[in-house]
C-alpha cells in the first residue's frame, strides 16, 4: 500500500523529511515545508532489524529514500521506533552497498557481469553434484531473508538438487525455542501475542536484555508498568542491564546455572498451592524426557530442588527464589519472556521446557495476560525459516523430512518427485561448517548472513570456509564472509523488493517495494530462479514471475495445518498491519490464543469442557518435563577462572553490516569492549579503558576494559558486534543435543592486563 501525503502537512512528515535532507526545522518554514512535502510517497513496510516486527513507513521522493517513521497504525509499535530502525533509510544508501557482482580471480575479488558470475556458480555447482553428489552442496540462509526467498532456496536445494543440507542462522539463535515449544506444546511458536502484555501484571524475563535487544517490547513493558502500578517484573540474568530499570526482583545468577532455579520455583508453586489442578488434570502430561511419569513422580523429582539447593547452584539468595515463586503464583496473570540467554545454551531446550512448566502448572496460558512468550532475534526467523521449514530436518508448514507423508505433500506442491526429498535430515549448522573444514561439503550458497563473524569458535571454521567454493548473496560488501567468498552476488536490500516477514507473535506482514534495486543488484528470488534454470530445473521454477507467485504457492503448504496462512493473501496483507495465524480464510481475523476456543482449529468435540486442547499432541495434552539441571559445557577452572558471556548493545545489530554504517549509532559505543565488574577490576589491577587480554581455550582477544557494575563478580561480558574484534574467536561450539544450537552464552576464560 502506498500512501500519498501530498496534502498532509502534519509535523511528522515534515520532520522525517528534514531528518533526511538535514535542514533547519521545517516547522519554522511552512512554505518550504509544503514545497518539500510535494511528491513524497510513504510506503507501508516492516523494520529490517530485530524480530519484534515494528511497522515502518518509508518515505520516497524522486525514486530515492527520503525519510522514515514508525507506522502509528501498526499494533506492535504504534508509531514508535527504536534507535536502529530510526536510521533504516540511511542504511539503504550506505557506502558499503554492493552494486555489482564480484568473482575471485588470482586470489582477488574483481568486478564481473551477472552472466559471468552466474556461469561460474552454475558450472562449479554442477561439477560438485556430478563428482561428489548433492550432499557436497549446502545452503545457509537467514532469518532476515524474506519468506519468498527462503522458500525458493529450500525448494531448490531439498526438492531439486536433492540435499537436506539447508540451514539458516536461526539455528544459532532460536532453535532451542523451537525445540522447547514442540516438545512442551507439540508445535512451534507462542500461544499468545503481544496483546497479552496489556493484560499482564507479572512478567518473568529470563536471559533477555529486553531494553537493548527488543527496545519496542521494552517500551510496552514500561508503559504497562505505568498503566498498572501493581504490575511486577522478575528478572533472571547474570547481568544488570538497562532492563533493570523496570525490574522489581533480580536474580543475578551465575551464567549457565539457572535450570535449578526454574525447578525450585515450580516446587515452591506446588508447595504454596498456586497450581491449577483442574488445568493440570485436563491438559497436562508429565515426562522425564524419555518416558511418561505421574504428577506424583514429578513432585518427588522436584524435592531435590529446594530454594537452598538452587540458590547455591546459581550463587543467589534462597529467599529470592521463594519470593519469585510467590510473585508468579499470586498474580492472576503471568507472561514469561526470554531470548538468547536461554536459547544459546547446551541445555537450551530443557530450559525452554522449564519455563513452559511454570505456565502449565499454574494454568497461566491461553488466556489474556498469560503466555510463555519467546522473543525472537531476527525479523523473519519465525516466518521464513521456522514456518518455511528451512532447517535441515524441516519442510514448510511445520513438517519434517523424516515423515513420508509430509515429503509426499510437499513434493506435489513443489512439482518434484517425492524421492528427490531425502528422508534423512541434513547437517545442522555447526556440523555443516565442520563438514566444510573436512572437505565433505565443497560448495555453499550463503544468503543474507555473515557466518565468518557469527559462528562460534571461529578459528576452527574459518579455514574450511576459505577452502569451500563460497557463493555469497549480499547487499553489502565487505563483510567478514563476503571477503573470503569466491563469488559475491549483489542483491536488493530492504525497500528495494517486495515480500513477507513473520515476526515473534505469529504475525505475517507485507513489505512494500518502495524504490528500484541499487546499482546492478537483483532480488534474491530472481537470482535463485535464474540459478535453478541454469542448473536444469527450468520446468520447476519458470512459473515464478513475482514474489506473490511464490507466496501463493507457499500458502498451499500451510493449508489445513496449525499454522494455516491461507487467508493471508498478498491483497489482504497489503491493506492490513499483518495477520496472526492460524488465519484459514480471507475473512478470518487471525488468532490471539492458539489451542483455545478462539483458535479455528480448536476441536470442540474432542476438547469437551477443557479450556485448552493442544490438538497437535495425540491426546491434546501438553507436557511438563522433569529433567535434571545441568551446568554449562565449559565451567570455570583453575586455568580459566572467569565466566565469559556474550551479548548485544542497543545501538548495534548483529555483525554491524547495517548499523555500523551510521555514525550516530557508532558514537554510542565507539570501540569494542569487555565489561568487567569493579571488584574484579580492582583485584586484577585493571582500570577503566585499560587494554586487557581475554583468553579461552580457543583463542585470545585484546580489547578495552569497561569497568562497570553490570556483570556479577567473576563474570565478564563482550558484545559480539564489532568485525575488527571477533568475539566469536573465544566462544565455544558445543551445542544443545536437541536443538544443535551453540552455547554462545557461557565459556571459561582468563583476563589479564595486555
Amino acid at each position, binding site marked *: 500500500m502506498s500512501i500519498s501525503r501530498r496534502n498532509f*502537512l*502534519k*509535523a*511528522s*512528515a515534515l*520532520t*522525517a523529511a*528534514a*531528518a533526511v*535532507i*538535514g*535542514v*533547519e*526545522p*521545517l*516547522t*519554522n518554514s*511552512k512554505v518550504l515545508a509544503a514545497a518539500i512535502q510535494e511528491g513524497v510517497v510513504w510506503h507501508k513496510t516492516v523494520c529490517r532489524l530485530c524480530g519484534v516486527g515494528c511497522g515502518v*513507513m518509508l518515505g520516497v521522493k524522486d525514486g530515492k529514500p527520503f*525519510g*522514515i*517513521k*514508525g*507506522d*502509528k497504525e501498526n499494533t506492535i509499535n*504504534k*508509531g*514508535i*521506533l*527504536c*534507535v536502529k530502525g*530510526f536510521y533504516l533509510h540511511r542504511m539503504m544508501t550506505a557506502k558499503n552497498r554492493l552494486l555489482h557482482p564480484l568473482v575471485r580471480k588470482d586470489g582477488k575479488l574483481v568486478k564481473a557481469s551477472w552472466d559471468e558470475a552466474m556461469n561460474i556458480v552454475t558450472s562449479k555447482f554442477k561439477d560438485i553434484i556430478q563428482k561428489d553428489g548433492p550432499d557436497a552442496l549446502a545452503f545457509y540462509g537467514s532469518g532476515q531473508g524474506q519468506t519468498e526467498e527462503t522458500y525458493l532456496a529450500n525448494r531448490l536445494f531439498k526438492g531439486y538438487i536433492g540435499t537436506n543440507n539447508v540451514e539458516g542462522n536461526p539455528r544459532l539463535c532460536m532453535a532451542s525455542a523451537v525445540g522447547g515449544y514442540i516438545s512442551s506444546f507439540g508445535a512451534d511458536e507462542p500461544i499468545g501475542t503481544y496483546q497479552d502484555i496489556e493484560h499482564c501484571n507479572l512478567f518473568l524475563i529470563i536471559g533477555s536484555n529486553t*531494553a*537493548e535487544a527488543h*527496545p519496542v517490547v*521494552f*517500551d510496552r513493558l*514500561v508503559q504497562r508498568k505505568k498503566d498498572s502500578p501493581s504490575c511486577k517484573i522478575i528478572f533472571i540474568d547474570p547481568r544488570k542491564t*538497562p532492563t533493570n*530499570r*523496570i525490574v522489581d526482583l533480580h536474580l543475578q545468577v551465575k551464567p549457565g546455572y539457572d535450570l535449578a532455579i526454574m525447578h525450585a520455583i515450580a516446587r515452591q508453586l506446588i508447595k504454596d498451592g498456586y497450581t491449577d489442578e483442574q488445568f493440570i488434570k485436563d491438559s497436562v502430561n508429565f515426562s522425564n524426557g524419555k518416558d511418561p511419569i505421574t504428577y506424583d513422580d514429578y513432585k518427588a523429582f522436584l524435592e531435590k530442588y529446594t530454594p537452598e539447593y538452587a540458590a547455591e547452584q546459581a550463587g543467589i539468595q534462597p529467599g529470592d527464589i521463594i519470593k519469585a515463586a510467590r510473585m508468579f503464583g499470586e498474580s492472576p496473570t503471568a507472561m514469561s519472556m526470554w531470548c538468547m540467554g536461554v536459547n544459546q545454551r547446551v541445555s537450551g531446550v530443557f530450559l525452554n521446557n522449564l519455563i513452559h512448566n511454570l505456565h502449565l502448572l499454574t494454568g497461566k496460558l491461553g488466556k489474556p495476560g498469560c503466555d510463555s512468550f519467546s522473543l525472537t532475534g531476527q525479523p523473519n526467523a519465525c516466518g521464513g525459516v521456522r514456518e518455511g521449514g528451512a532447517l535441515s530436518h524441516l519442510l514448510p508448514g511445520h513438517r519434517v523430512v523424516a515423515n513420508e507423508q509430509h515429503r509426499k505433500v510437499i513434493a506435489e506442491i513443489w512439482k518434484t518427485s517425492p524421492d528427490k526429498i531425502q528422508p534423512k535430515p541434513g547437517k545442522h549448522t555447526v556440523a555443516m561448517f565442520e563438514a566444510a573444514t573436512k572437505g565433505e561439503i565443497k560448495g555453499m550458497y550463503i544468503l543474507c548472513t555473515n557466518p565468518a563473524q557469527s559462528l562460534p569458535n571461529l578459528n576452527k571454521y574459518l579455514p574450511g570456509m576459505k577452502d569451500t567454493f563460497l557463493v555469497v548473496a549480499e547487499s553489502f560488501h565487505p563483510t567478514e564472509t563476503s571477503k573470503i567468498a569466491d563469488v559475491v552476488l549483489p542483491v536488493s536490500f530492504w525497500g528495494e523488493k517486495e515480500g513477507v516477514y513473520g515476526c515473534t507473535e505469529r504475525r505475517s506482514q507485507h513489505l512494500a517495494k518502495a524504490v528500484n534495486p541499487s546499482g546492478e543488484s537483483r532480488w534474491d528470488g530472481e537470482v535463485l530462479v535464474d540459478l535453478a534454470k541454469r542448473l536444469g530445473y527450468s520446468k520447476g521454477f519458470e512459473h515464478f514471475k513475482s514474489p506473490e507467485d511464490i507466496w501463493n504457492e507457499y500458502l498451499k503448504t500451510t493449508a489445513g495445518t496449525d499454522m494455516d496462512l491461507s487467508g493471508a493473501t498478498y491483497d489482504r496483507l497489503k491493506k492490513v498491519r499483518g495477520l496472526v495465524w492460524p488465519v484459514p480464510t480471507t475473512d478470518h481475523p487471525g488468532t490471539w490464543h492458539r489451542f483455545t476456543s478462539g483458535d479455528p482449529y480448536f476441536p470442540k468435540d474432542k476438547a469437551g469442557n477443557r479450556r485448552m486442547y493442544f490438538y497437535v499432541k495425540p491426546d491434546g495434552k501438553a507436557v511438563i518435563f522433569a529433567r535434571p539441571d545441568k551446568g554449562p559445557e565449559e565451567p570455570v577452572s583453575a586455568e580459566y577462572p572467569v565466566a565469559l558471556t556474550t551479548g548485544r548493545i*542497543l*545501538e548495534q545489530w548483529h555483525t554491524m553490516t547495517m548499523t555500523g554504517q551510521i*555514525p*550516530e*549509532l*557508532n*558514537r*554510542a*559505543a*565507539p*570501540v569494542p569492549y569487555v565489561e568487567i565488574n569493579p571488584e574484579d577490576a580492582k583485584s586484577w589491577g585493571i582500570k577503566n579503558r585499560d587494554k586487557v587480554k581475554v583468553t579461552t581455550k580457543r583463542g585470545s582477544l585484546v580489547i578495552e576494559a569497561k569497568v562497570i557494575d553490570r556483570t556479577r563478580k567473576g563474570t565478564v561480558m563482550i558484545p559480539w558486534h564489532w568485525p575488527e574484534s571477533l568475539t566469536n574467536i573465544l566462544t565455544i561450539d558445543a551445542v544443545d543435543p536437541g536443538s544443535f544450537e551453540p552455547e554462545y552464552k557461557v565459556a571459561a576464560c582468563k583476563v589479564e592486563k595486555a
Partner: protein
Amino acid sequence: MKVKIYSILCIAVALTFLLGFSHSNKYPSSSIIKGDKHPDVDWTVSCTDCHMDVTPEIVKSWNESRHGAVNFGCYICHGDGEEVFYSKGTDQRCSGCHAGQEVNFEKTKLNSCFDCHDGHSLKFHI
C-alpha cells in the same frame, strides 16, 4: 565603530557559510547553517561517558527521562558530534519515532516539540 561591527558581522556570516559548505556533501544540515561544531575530543569515548563528567546535570536529567529509561542517547537529537552536530537539539527527528503524537504546528502557536517538552527531561512544561 559601526563599520567595525558590520565587518565583524560580515566575517562571522562568511565563516558560518564556509563552515557549512565544507561539510555540505554529507550533511547539509542545521549544524552547518548554524555553524555548530563540537569541540574536538577523544572520539573513542561515547557521548554519555564523557558528558557524565562534563555536564553531569544534563546527563542526570536525560537519564531520568523516558528517553534515558529506554537508553535513547544524545545522538538522536544532537548527531554523532563528529560528522554532524546540532548543539541545540532539533526536533526534526521526534516524529520519526513518535508518529502517533503528530502535531500540526500550523494550527498552534508553537514551532517545535521542545516548546512544550523540556529538551533533556522531556517534561511537559506548559
